[in-house]
């Protein structure tokens, strides 16, 4: 079964203006007129232009469209140091004449721009004269006239200057809290207008927080002071009186409760030895004032405070080696220096080590005998090495009888205590 098609054509019913049928008149005219001046030339660019669009109106045609586009550009390159002038005059007249029974609509859009990019010393003139008229002819009573004139004339100057607007803002939130900071800083600048832009910003954030942190500060404070028993007479003393005549001093019991100690006044080092052994000796060399009476009878002067002895030779027996070494180092370091020796009877001597000992003998294995020699005077106070009983009266300067000449009415104590605890709380 076969079908052949020899011709296939169609027809379309269209209203006026169909395919290949032109019933309108289009009159588009573009005019480009340029006058370019370079250097010191003066450019004059007068342009006269007239456009007419004629239509043959048929049948029900009743409108005329006349679009006129005109663009005129005059470009001049002006030398900065020159005195060239630059004028751009544009005159434009558009007229639409409509036949009777037709509407006349005359829309004229005119834009006249004179733009100059020039140094500051240049002036810029942009006069624009615009006249828009709607003239009705063959006036019919039922027709209305509308004439809208919109006119915009702007003369502006564009100059580029640098505008520096530095805004430095720092917003800190040290810990917790919410901080919203909104800052707008606008700098506007216009020619011949000073610009100041001061922005003051102050924002406080107060947050009450529980740190749950403890601040611990160990205040290590050590204050050392030497103090003396006000009266050494708390100690019983040995009766050192020898001889006859006079009134015998009271016999007092001797206490041997104190440990033998030597305290360095240079660095505060303290050497303490055990309580005395029976073989511990102290040979005391002292000066005794002997006086002869007029008849030649010697008179022994007895000082109830005891002789002011000068030389003491201490012999310590049964000393263990570590104690021996410690004492030996001390004697070596403080040789010739002032030390305070507190003997077994609790008597304090302000002494100078004169001989640290020439030979130390190991009497039996692990036990040594040593001897050293000092010279010194007995202090009027008892140097307290160990802890002080709170019932005992102490003073900084010692006995009121032996205090240095100072004003004790207002004892000075340059003891300042400042305790600062700096701590840093880290953000969570």
């Amino acid at each position, binding site marked *: 079964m076969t079908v052949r*098609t*020899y011709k*296939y054509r169609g027809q379309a*019913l269209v209203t006026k203006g169909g395919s290949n049928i*032109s019933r309108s008149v289009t009159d588009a005219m573009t005019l480009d007129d340029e006058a370019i001046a370079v250097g010191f030339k003066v450019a004059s660019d007068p342009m006269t232009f007239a456009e007419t669009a004629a239509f043959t109106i048929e049948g029900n045609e009743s409108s005329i469209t006349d679009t006129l586009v005109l663009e005129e550009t005059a470009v001049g390159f002006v030398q900065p140091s020159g005195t060239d002038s630059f004028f751009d005059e544009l005159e434009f007249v558009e007229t639409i004449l409509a036949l009777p029974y037709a509407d006349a609509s005359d829309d004229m859009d005119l834009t006249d721009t004179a733009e100059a990019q020039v140094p500051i010393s240049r002036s810029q003139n942009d006069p624009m004269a615009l006249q828009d008229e709607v003239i009705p002819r063959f006036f019919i009573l039922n027709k209305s006239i509308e004439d809208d004139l919109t006119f915009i004339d702007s003369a502006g100057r564009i100059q580029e200057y640098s505008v520096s607007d530095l805004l430095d803002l720092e917003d800190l939130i040290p810990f917790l809290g919410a901080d919203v900071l909104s800052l707008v800083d606008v700098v506007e600048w216009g020619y011949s207008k000073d610009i100041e832009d001061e922005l003051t910003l102050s924002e406080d954030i107060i947050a009450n927080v529980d740190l749950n942190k403890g601040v611990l500060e160990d205040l290590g404070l050590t204050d050392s002071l030497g103090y003396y028993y006000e009266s050494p007479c708390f100690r019983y003393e040995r009766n050192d009186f020898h001889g006859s005549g006079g009134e015998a001093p009271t016999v007092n019991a001797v206490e041997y409760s104190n440990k033998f100690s030597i305290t360095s006044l240079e660095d505060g080092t303290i050497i303490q030895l055990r309580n005395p052994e029976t073989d511990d000796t102290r040979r005391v060399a002292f000066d005794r004032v002997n006086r002869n009476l007029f008849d030649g009878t010697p008179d022994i002067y007895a000082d109830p405070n005891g002789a002011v002895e000068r030389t003491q030779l201490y012999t310590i027996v049964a000393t263990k080696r570590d104690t021996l070494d410690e004492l030996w180092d001390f004697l070596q370091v403080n040789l010739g220096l002032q030390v305070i020796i507190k003997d077994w009877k609790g008597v304090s001597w302000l002494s100078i080590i004169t001989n640290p000992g020439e030979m130390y003998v190991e009497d039996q294995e692990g036990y040594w005998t040593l001897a050293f020699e000092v010279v010194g005077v007995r202090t009027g106070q008892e140097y307290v090495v160990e802890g002080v009983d709170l019932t005992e009266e102490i003073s900084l300067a010692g006995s009121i009888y032996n205090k240095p000449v100072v004003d004790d009415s207002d004892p000075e104590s340059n003891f300042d205590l400042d305790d600062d605890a700096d701590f840093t709380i880290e953000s969570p």
Partner: protein
Amino acid sequence: MTLVYLEGFETYGTTSTSGSDVEAYLEKVATVDNGTANNVGLIDNDQADGTYALIMPTTPVGQLFDCTFSVPAAYRSATNGSHWEVALGFRFKHSTDMGVTSGTYQNFFRWATNTSASGNPTLASNDNGDLRYTDNAGNTTYSSALNTDDWNWIEMNFKPTSSGNGGFIILKVNGTELLNDNSRNILQTFFTSEGFALIQGQDRDSGSGETAFDDIYVIDVDGVQHTGLLGDHRIVPMIPASDATPNDWTPSTGSDNYALIDEAETDTGDYVEASTSGDDDHYGITAITPLTVEGVQIDVDHEMTDGTTGSLFVGTDNGTADEVEFTTTNGDGEVVARAQFSQDPSGNDWTPTNLDNIEITQRFTE
């Protein structure tokens, strides 16, 4: 609006085509009953657009020539009261040398019936451009209503029946309304077959001038009475310009199907052929850029060469197909399937845009 009839004389051929070719072509159009149409020809319609118009030849004195186009049966009246309302238009050019002197008129249009011309709406003109309208109610003349030696577009909206059955007439010439009578005896009785005739030659005395016709349309305004005239219009050709998809038919030569069937004058030497049921060809058309589009008519000049009967579907397609089915029978020879489309395939009114978007199609089934 439903397109009933469309004729722009764009499918007959070139200016060399004689009236016999026009007549022969019209005889191939199943929906057209052609009259004598002797010696009509085609001319450029003088609008500088390359399309064609029908020219009535110089007629001997006393001779009559007419080219009759029948209205499809569906639109023919059944009773006076139910007669359909007609809107039609055409372009008409009248010579000043028709030998029709002032005071006399020569008919150029008649709404015809199967009986005598008496009482039918008729238009007549003379060498002065005067126009005369005649119906059963009588004559009405309009001085200088026509342009002479130039084209006029004439439109009529009427109901050809008695005033008692709603008979009325609206007549416009070149956009100017000359007659608007809502109570008019156009025809007193109904007729079973109707059409219209483009005529010349009746009552001619002398002269060598010619008349011409173009851009004929007949539409049904779908019940909206006293309206529907389209105004000044054109009928433009829709020519296949490219092969689209599908492209099933077999070309007799070459590979471009559209190039073998796009001619103005029928050439049976080249063709496209469908031999398999379902063969479908789509073609793109040259762009048309009118102001508005009212309707589309497609003519497919074809012949069944083998087999018994089949169906040829003529249509348009924009992604949706809209087809009209024609029965083809072997032995009928060359026939023209003429399909009219009042809307685009999507059912929307035609616009220039959707017209350019369609493909024209032909599909064959057994």
